[in-house]
């Protein structure tokens, strides 16, 4: 099973199994709950290391693909795959989750069981997003991940936690609705939700998009991802969410969730709508640069340490977006690197801030 067969499914659903197990436990044995969460997340990390073997260096295209028919009409299928970009991001996720568990060891004393269930479910959603090759499945995980994160902020957060959680959810929902429209439009045009198939259809010219249509579709996806990144001027949910979230939430939010936006841009915007990306690149770059400088300047004067790191995230993710939309081989590699580096370093920063 572990050499390729269903590794990706295992990666997605193993934390879910762990979460399920936790749910069945009685809630008062905190030590045991923490231990289970730790074991599950560490095991998940070890599993994910197998990806390193499954994705050979220098390989192109998706590896370890899994395909299972799910819903016949509309044809929504369970299609997973991993490539160089998503592999590293999955590794980042599985690496940060045990750390988040550890960071919550002492600080979470209230509703401990539910907290770790949420944390593990968050991992399910995020890993699912990174590994899905079916658009509908992607969207499903995209929304799935929203729920535990909102609860993490809303239940275990600080004073204004409900405000921050609601803001986070609404902001993201506004984007994902547009993305859903884009997904459905593509389905209507191609008759499938399968990402590689759609990509092929577009690349071979079986489906030619009007420039206007392409731009609208591009924007529908881009808007959703830009909110998640967050790209200036859609960033104001981030400082609130960070300030209110518990440490583990901040770590996961900054370390992984923000990367979903840039990952989406790389996975959907560029390959599906190359022309529109090309035309929009200039404006996106302008926004990214504004975000870089603006985020840095605003973080300079923050009296709140968490906000400072949050705004610096705005700045750094601006670099990633700029790298992606410089539309250059080197710059996209740089963007992936920056995503990883930012994930690790900002995760660490939030841990430190959380300790202080």
């Amino acid at each position, binding site marked *: 099973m572990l050499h390729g067969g269903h590794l990706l499914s295992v990666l997605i659903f193993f934390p879910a199994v762990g979460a399920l197990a936790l749910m069945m436990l009685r809630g008062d044995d905190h030590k045991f709950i923490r231990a289970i969460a730790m074991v599950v997340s560490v095991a998940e990390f070890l599993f994910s290391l197998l990806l390193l073997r499954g994705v050979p260096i220098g390989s192109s295209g998706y590896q370890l693909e899994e395909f299972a028919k799910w819903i016949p009409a509309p044809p929504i299928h369970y299609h997973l795959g991993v490539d160089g970009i998503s592999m590293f991001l999955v590794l980042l996720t599985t690496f940060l989750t045990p750390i988040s568990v550890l960071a919550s060891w002492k600080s979470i004393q209230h509703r401990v069981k539910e907290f770790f269930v949420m944390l593990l479910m968050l991992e399910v959603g995020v890993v699912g997003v990174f590994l899905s090759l079916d658009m509908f499945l992607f969207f499903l995980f995209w929304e799935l991940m929203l729920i535990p994160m909102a609860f993490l902020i809303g239940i275990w957060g600080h004073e204004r936690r409900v405000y921050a959680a609601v*803001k986070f959810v*609404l*902001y993201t929902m506004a984007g994902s609705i547009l993305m859903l429209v884009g997904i459905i439009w593509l389905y209507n045009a191609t008759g499938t939700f399968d990402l590689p198939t759609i990509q092929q259809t577009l690349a071979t010219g079986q489906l030619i998009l009007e420039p206007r249509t392409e731009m609208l579709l591009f924007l529908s996806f881009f808007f959703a991802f830009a909110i998640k990144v967050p790209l200036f*001027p859609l*960033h*104001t*949910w981030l400082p609130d969410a960070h300030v209110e979230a518990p440490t583990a939430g901040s770590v996961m939010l900054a370390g992984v969730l923000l990367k979903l936006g840039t990952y989406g841009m790389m996975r959907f915007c560029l390959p599906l709508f190359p022309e529109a990306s090309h035309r929009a690149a200039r404006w996106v770059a302008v926004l990214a640069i504004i975000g870089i400088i*603006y985020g840095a*300047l*605003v973080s*300079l*004067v*923050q009296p709140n340490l968490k906000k400072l790191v949050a705004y610096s995230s705005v700045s750094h993710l601006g670099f990633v977006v700029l790298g992606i939309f410089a539309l*250059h*081989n*080197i710059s996209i*590699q*740089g963007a992936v690197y920056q995503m990883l580096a930012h994930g690790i370093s900002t995760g660490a920063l939030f841990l430190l801030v959380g300790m202080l």
Partner: protein
Amino acid sequence: MPEQPLLHYLWIVPLLPLLGSAINGLFGAKRPNKYVTATAITSTGLSFLCALEAVREFFESGQVLFRKDSFTWITAGNFRAGFDLQMDQLTVVMLLVVTGVGWLIHIYAIGYMAHEGGYYRFFSYLNLFMFFMLILVLAANYVLLFVGWEGVGLSSYLLIGFWFLKKSAADAGKKAFIVNRIGDFGFMLGMFLLFRAFGTLDFQTLFAKAGTWQPDAMGQFGTLTIACLLLFMGAAGKSAQLPLYVWLPDAMEGPTPVSALIHAATMVTAGVYVVARSHILFTHSPTAMLVVAIVGCATAFFAATIGLVQTDIKKVLAYSTVSQLGYMFLACGVGAFTAGIFHLMTHAFFKAVLFLAAGSVIHAMGGEQEMSKMGGLGKKIRWTYVTMFIATLAIAGIPPFAGFFSKDAILFASFQNETAGRILYGLGLLTALLTAFYMFRLIFLTFNGKPRYDEKKVHVHESPWSMLGPLGVLAILSVIGGWFALPTFFQGPDYFANFLAPVFGGAPEAAGAATEAATHQLELILGGVAFGTALLGIVIAYWLYLKTPRKPDDLAKSMKPAYTTLLNKYYVDELYAFLVVRLLWLSTNVFWKAADVVGIDGTVNGIAHGAAAIGDGVRHSQSGNTRSYGVWVVAGAIVVLAVIFFWPGAGKAVWGLVR
């Protein structure tokens, strides 16, 4: 086993201090100082020996540029940066200075830091610094050089802020780091531009391409000029030149061995090294060269004037370092890279002595740094006095001490510069006068005259041998370090210039025999002038501070505006604090509070509140009251009927929409 084992394993040289740093940093906290000392000294000592052996092998192989590509570090598209080390004549000089002086200062630090807390931490940082500095000088491409460049900045920050509980030390560390980052910003842009123009950042390929570079259409403001100026911006940050010099005097908050090693002998010369290393780029751009020369010369003079009135012994030395670094850039700017590197080397020797001796004085005085509270120490700490006196003669430019030869070479080269030779020479000479003056002022105030401290309270004692040993060795070096150039005064060859000629190209040999004789005569004259100027400076200092000790105060009173301006360092810090810090602070606060909170977030929340308000309004229609629903049904029916009745086409349209 390859024929030249250490050249082939050149990476051992930087690796050793890194190991030392890791061992001390990770396991040193709980160990007694003995172990920490042993680790630190052994790692740097071994590194020094390895460097010596590598240099020997380099000479044995006939002094040809050696490079070793260990592994590829970054590849992206056509961009490649590797962990490539190289060794040529310039590297030899830097390598020996860094490892040799570095090792001696490590030994010194054993004694100096013996009673300090965080002993392991100190040596861990110091070794880390050695590692990065060695990477910097051994790197064979700009990217790896930049790793060392940033790394030394980091270690410098850590060491300046070593006593981080003291607010001034922590602030000084931050200041050094931030000002350096401003320079680094330029350095990075310079690298990007070079990559864009030449497609590589590897020294060998880049310089080969640059050698045949045609000046582009933009002429004076072409690619190379801009790239050079950007690189120089980084160099000015690291080497504390105008206008980015402000961090170096504050950096004296760090322990004195740090000031000696990082802020005098090695790290601050990295900028000079980079300019010398990129000399092919710079010589292609006369504009950039002129800027380097002017900035160097101006800094030399500017810092020397501030040095005249400082009363903190380390501050005097700090401004003197800034000033001497200015000399080095002046040399590079007029194309005399050899002279610049020569001065870099001799400066490393005598400035290390000066700082270490100052440290010894501070140690003897129990932490006192104000010269106004010293005096008459010469008899009590004789060895410190002797070594410091030698180094002072060297920096003042008295033959046959090292500083004379290197400074003379610089002045000679700037005199011959065609563009602005006379001005550069004049200012340079004036700076030499000031240098001799303020250095002897320091000596007289510290070691001569009457004690101005409470002799009962301060127990003045000579430092231990671990501190005096390195002082002695370095003092000897600051005597003989300049003798490479001695034969030039007897029409002989300049060994140092000839040694570096393969790197910088042997230009001076081109002149004919007749002009050579004339040049030689000029050199003798200029040497004499420089010597005379230095003597004059010493005499003035002697007259002011020993003969008529009340005179300086009178002078200060009679020239009060000038004096206070100098004492306050031309108010540059205040100017920066207002122009940069204050304005930035205000404008970013506007950004945050007006643009972010009110503008963007206000819009977002406004939308949310708007939605809520609409929802609230509509809510009233869903009252759950059957009668009100009945009213709505009737009203709706009336509207539909009215539309159909008065607007015949609409019915069809609605029907079509529904279907």
